[in-house]
């Protein structure tokens, strides 16, 4: 009986120890679980820290790239503006160059000869081809007769121009004041009044007006005046006047020289007889 009781007691004790062991194992498992969870938490936190650092790094990089992009955009805009300015300047220089070429050619041609007829032909060529006039007349003042004498015309009869007196209309004003006249009417309107052309340019040697170029209408394609047209008008006012005047003097003096020469030869011939 005692032996049985002893066995039961030992069994109780073993059961007790077993229960304690079970409790301990459970606690151990729970602690293990907690620690594992903690490790996962720490690992996640570490990953998050790393990610945050990476994000910060990338954000910094993006900011730098954005700054760089902005600066490049700014530089691009500056270069673009500069290019546009250069392009505009280039176009202006090219236009100026063309204008100068026109003026050079016109002036070169005007002074390329002392033949009066040829000078007149060149003046007419310039008025048609470079200015684009359709109907016009070149008139010189005859100081002796005190009247205007047409020396060249295109698209308008000399009879109509011959009737213009130095004091008539716009031509009279231009002759008196020596300033160019440009009608405010559209170029295509033209004018049929010989004394009142659309454009009238004085032919001047210094301040002395020796005649006028009167333009009554322009070619259909000529819609407006450009800068070079006004330069050409100025050039004609001065250079055409001197070219016409000097060639006329030269032609006249050549003719007189030949007359005198012939006369002298005639005298020589008579004295030999």
């Amino acid at each position, binding site marked *: 009986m005692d032996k049985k009781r002893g066995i039961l007691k030992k069994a109780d004790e073993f059961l007790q120890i077993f229960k304690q062991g079970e409790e301990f194992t459970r606690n151990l498992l729970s602690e293990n679980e907690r620690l594992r969870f903690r490790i996962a938490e720490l690992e996640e936190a570490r990953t998050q820290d790393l990610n945050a650092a990476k994000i910060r790094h990338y954000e910094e990089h993006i900011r730098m790239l954005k700054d760089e992009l902005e600066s490049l955009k700014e530089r691009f805009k500056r270069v673009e503006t500069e290019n546009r300015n250069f392009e505009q300047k280039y176009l202006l220089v090219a236009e100026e160059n063309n204008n100068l070429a026109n003026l050079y050619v016109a002036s070169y041609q005007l002074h390329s000869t002392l033949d009066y007829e040829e000078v007149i032909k060149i003046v007419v060529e310039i008025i*048609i081809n470079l200015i684009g006039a359709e109907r016009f007349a070149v008139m010189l003042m005859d100081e002796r007769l005190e009247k205007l004498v047409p020396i060249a015309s295109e698209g308008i009869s000399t009879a109509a121009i011959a009737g213009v007196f130095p004091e008539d209309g716009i031509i009279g004003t231009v002759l008196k004041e020596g300033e160019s006249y440009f009608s405010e009417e559209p170029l295509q309107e033209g004018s049929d009044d010989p004394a009142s052309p659309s454009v009238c340019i004085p032919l001047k040697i210094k301040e002395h007006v020796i005649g006028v170029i009167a333009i009554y209408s322009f*070619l259909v394609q000529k819609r407006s005046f450009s800068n070079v047209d006004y330069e050409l008008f100025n050039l004609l006012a001065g250079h055409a006047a001197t070219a016409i005047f000097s060639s006329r003097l030269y032609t006249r003096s050549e003719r007189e020289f030949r007359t005198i020469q012939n006369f002298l030869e005639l005298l020589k011939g008579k004295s030999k007889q």
Partner: protein
Amino acid sequence: MPTILVVEDSPTMRQLISFAMRRIPGSRVIEATDGVDALKKLSSEKADIILADINMPVMDGLKLVSLVRGNSAYKDIPIIIITTEGAEEDRKKAMAMGADAYLPKPIQTQELIRLVTQQLSKR
């Protein structure tokens, strides 16, 4: 190196056009005073483009266009007409006869250079 044949009876215009054409890099300019002179020049020199006026003595620009187009040796040379005749029917007539472009006077040099460069680049 393009050779440009300028056919124009007016010395002023001839000089002006030649002056402008010499600004095309590497270009060489030959000049003729009318259609007959132009054909004579074409028989001795190879031209890459012809710039011709319409109103010229001896042989006008339109006759020159028809003769150039009718000649197998020159028929492919581009021709630009430069003239005071600015009406649409004049342009149509010149184009129908075989001109490649039509530029009324007074010419804008930049426009002429652009036209010539364009025609030369087509070849």
